[in-house]
């Protein structure tokens, strides 16, 4: 949450980012990596993202990708009707991050598919309520940009939790901590003295 705020998200959307990461990590999916890569990607250049309103206007011809957090939160707000208005395929950054919002947006099973051009793999993830089922190697899930499709499908057979990705986790956490640090104010003498207990003797 702090990292997303540090990267410039509004407080409410930063909370949504925190929700998505927690939801995915609890199911063993590499959300810390996905968010770290996404925030770094946005930050590395003045990236153009598409305004979320355009998701519900399929006639639009703009090609800039959508933010998975902003679009995801809006889809969750709009519910099943919002999902039905989406075009057949959308350009999306880090598609994995949108999965928890799709699960929140409707009660029926939804299949997300995208092609990871880096690993040349088709990624397929099915979500329904609290359940997520992966039909892909877990390492192929994160990619900065992909065309993502969404369709109703049969429910996943059972809730599945994948083994946690510990490898490289520290590196990605460090990236998120760097973004979070942007929310911290540089210390000044005034701020030091404004800390609780500053300038007082602790011995009694």
């Amino acid at each position: 949450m702090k990292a997303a705020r540090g990267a410039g998200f509004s407080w409410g959307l930063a909370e949504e980012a925190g929700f998505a990461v927690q939801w995915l990590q609890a199911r063993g999916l590499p959300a810390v990596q996905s968010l770290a890569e996404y925030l770094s990607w946005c930050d590395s250049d003045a990236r153009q993202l598409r305004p979320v309103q355009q998701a519900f206007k399929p006639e639009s011809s703009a090609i800039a990708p959508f933010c998975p957090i902003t679009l995801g939160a809006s889809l969750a707000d709009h519910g099943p009707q919002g999902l039905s208005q989406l075009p057949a395929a959308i350009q999306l950054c880090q598609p994995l991050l949108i999965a928890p919002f799709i699960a929140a947006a409707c009660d029926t099973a939804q299949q997300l598919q995208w092609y990871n051009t880096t690993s040349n793999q088709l990624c397929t993830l099915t979500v329904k309520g609290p359940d997520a089922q992966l039909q892909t190697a877990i390492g192929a899930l994160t990619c900065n940009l992909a065309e993502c499709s969404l369709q109703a499908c049969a429910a996943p057979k059972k809730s599945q939790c994948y083994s946690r990705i510990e490898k490289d986790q520290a590196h990605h956490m460090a990236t998120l901590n760097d973004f979070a640090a942007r929310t911290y104010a540089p210390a000044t003498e005034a701020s030091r003295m404004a800390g609780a207990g500053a300038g007082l003797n602790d011995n009694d």
Partner: protein
Amino acid sequence: MQTQPDLSALNLRPANEVMRLKRMGSFHQSRLSFMRVLLRRLKNENWQFSRPIWQVNADGVGVATYQATGPRRSYTLVAFAHDLPDEKRSDRVIAEAWDSTFTLFDGIPNKADIERLSQNVPLQEAGRISDSEFVLARANRSVRLFEYVIDCLAKGEQPDQEPIESTGYLMRTSAVYGSAKFGAADRQTWADRPEFVGSFQPELLTVWLIRAFTIDLVEHLAKARAPKTATTLAPELRHRFGVGNSTGLGMAPFLLNHPALIHAWVNARETALAQVRAIDKANAEDIEQFEQLVQRAQINAKNWVTQHPYQTEKITQLQADFDKLLTHFTSDPLAQEKPWNALYLWAEQHLSLEGQEQLVSLIIEPYGEMIDQLSNTMCCDEAEQFCISGAMTIKRLQNIIEQKYGWALDIDFDGKQACARIWYVSEEKLEPRLGERHEESIANYEQALAPARDIKLAYEALQTWDKEQSCAQFLMRHPEYRHVVRRLQLVEKLPYAEVCDNTIAHDMLPIDLLRCKLSFFGATHFDPRSDRWVRITMFQGAPFPHELADIDPDDCAYPPLQST
């Protein structure tokens, strides 16, 4: 056996009366406070306690373990005692060394566990604990009292009661970290365990066991100093030692960041009050118990020492309130119909806020059988409240603001004083701080801890929208109000979720927020050290582990009558 009133017909105090900072800053511990919930449960379930390891040398350096075994599991406090020079002793989060450091282990640690913990627990934030540990804590000595007590015991004498009462503890904790902090187990690991139902139960079990450690340590050091003459503390004096705690600004944002949980806490207490106010007739036994409790609480107020002018004034008012209450008793006010309701209404007219809230805690005290079960509701799954209902209309959102936040709409945030403060986190120490908006360049770092201002801004933005449009549409255009909409939808369902005051006003006192939270923990003797830092005492008067089977912990919440 008390008859159960119809809960749906209860007349709860309105949120905009209860959730004012001045009143929240006057809350007192009650039988629903988490320390009391913990001890009641440990006693009812007949938990057993032991001290399997005591390897502390004559300088007070070493390790000790305290084991608590209940019907389902064991937990162990692993305590490391250190030799800390006076100049290194600091309660602030910035400290790097402490007199003692602790962890609560899930189960019974073996040698390898203790070795691993000895490499990490003394380092606190700089170390790493594991899924097997639930809590990480540290404590510093009260230099004056610690040395004084050792000195007395070493000579074979008992310490005087006066310095014990005025300090209240041998050691004070300066941090008690739970839930996934520094590698500790996530809350999900233990959230379903029946022994931890409620709030902060592992943390408070840790503090209660620390209290036993502090007494064992002074007795050990006295004996090491003078083996031939040393004695141990007399049981009645031992009880007067609690554990101290220093709490700063870090705790203040908690009340704003966990609105659903705060509702659960306050709602339980308000429901208890309403249930007792609804009782038609008080029996003689309950009245007698209540009148004794009033006298005992009066002793507690007399023993309450602070140097801070704000709290000094409040204690003076409280002592005057006790005099008024005792005078009022001469007219036999509890003989009438709905006696507790009448007494509460009288208090609203005649007592200070400090006195009114003390009375709330006291009048629910005789009715444990009726209200104690409310403690099971004092927790919540915050994730359940997370999702925004995008279909809600703008009109309904406006209605919520008008009904719940009229007080906020009345504040002129263009005025300098109304937005004088900024909550932010310092880069240097990662601790929350409160800055001056008009004097420091920190506006870019402001935390979302000003709901009143943000809700008023959202209300103004909503004015230009068609009333039948949805929140989902509004939020696509205004993502900056997403946290506001989430909060409004939550407060509509959970009225006590919001602090009904301006949290960035020039005269806002963080100690009011701290006091509210700490009263729910069960703390006593709030002693503000500034407007943003408070010392408290925990478990003062409570039984020690080896006494729990024989002593009713609920009868220890106020000092005994002879204790003057």
